């Protein structure tokens, strides 16, 4: 039995305040990614506890599977546009998955 063929994909993870979601979304697509996944996140950072309880204290975690070129464009645009004024961290993983060319 042949294993399903997998290829390399970049995974960009952005953890940021919820207000940014609607601003970052269009930037991610403009950078060349086909889509992204968002979920609520909790934690603590240099801007204090983000307990997701209510009223602007919630964070989101945005995951983007994309090509390497798109990944660095996303990191670049997000860092230059938002990191000065918003709570935001970004990092990039190397991952592998089936149908890698679709990203």
């Amino acid at each position, binding site marked *: 039995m042949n294993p399903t063929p997998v290829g390399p994909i970049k995974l960009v993870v952005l953890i940021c305040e919820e*207000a940014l979601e*609607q601003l970052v979304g269009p930037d991610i697509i403009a950078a060349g990614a086909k889509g992204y996944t968002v979920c609520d996140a909790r934690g603590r950072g240099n801007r204090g506890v983000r307990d997701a*309880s*209510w*009223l*602007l204290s919630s964070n989101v975690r945005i995951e983007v599977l994309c090509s390497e070129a798109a990944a660095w464009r996303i990191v670049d645009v997000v860092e230059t546009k938002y990191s000065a*004024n918003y709570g935001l961290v970004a990092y990039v993983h190397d991952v592998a998955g089936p149908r890698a060319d679709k990203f």
Partner: protein
Amino acid sequence: MRLDPVVGFFVLGLLAGLLRSDLKLSSGLSDTLIIYLLIAIGLKGGFELANTPVQDLVLPIIVAVLMSAGTPLIAFPILRRLGRLARPDAASIAAHYGSVSVVTFAVGTSYLTRQGVEYEGYMSVFLVFLEFPALIIGVLLAKGLNRNTDWRLLAHEVLAGKAIVLLIGALAIGWLWGRDGAEALALFYDDLFKGFLSLFLLGMGLVTAARISDLRKAGVFLVLFGIALPVLSAVGGVLIGWSLGLSLGGATLLAVLYASASYIAAPAAMRIAIPEANPALSIGVSLGVTFPFNVLVGVPLYHAMARWLFGVMP
């Protein structure tokens, strides 16, 4: 006890938060409660509108909205000169104070009902029109007209926000169906109102307790500002309400609206429109100082001010 029992729940939430109790309102419940409160307030205004000639309201609303621009325009220079705050912070805080708080309004109506004071049911129409102009003024104060503000995004955030959508929607529903048609809804939105308000205020107490640490960053000036400006705005509200020919209760509610500071619509809009502003300052002072002040002291005080004015100038 002159204070409304719903205020007791605010104090309970505050104490629970300060004691680090594990009491917590999930954001789903808080969202549900605010939706309920917005609809209930909108419906009440709509039912009342059905019995009021709408053209009689146009002038009072225009005057009340124009005058409400005074709050951010007075607040901004005070924050800049006396508070020495950076321009974005001063503009954002000015916008918070120019906008209004739905829950403070709800506490005001609840207080008046308990005191047996009549007020114009259509006051919630004022609430709709007082919510968003200050947010636009705040952005103008921060950036002027021609800098790269995304006005479309801001307009969408402000005008399509749930507060405006639900208030206007419920107003329209109440207005179209009138009190007779909406009798089935009155049981849920009228009779249960105080119960839901008490739950929401319990949550507000918890949130306020969590914000008290922000006050250390805000400093003494902002704490004093968060008490003095609402009182000043309330004086204006009572005077304008009186000159518009509102009843004693109506003028009190207009004062409550002018004195209240937004902590739901404004923070969300300012975060997008003025990202340089530190949200801990604006939310800290509006939620940590002004909201508790208005709920515990302000509402009875503004009522007393209106009673005094209506006593000497009948």
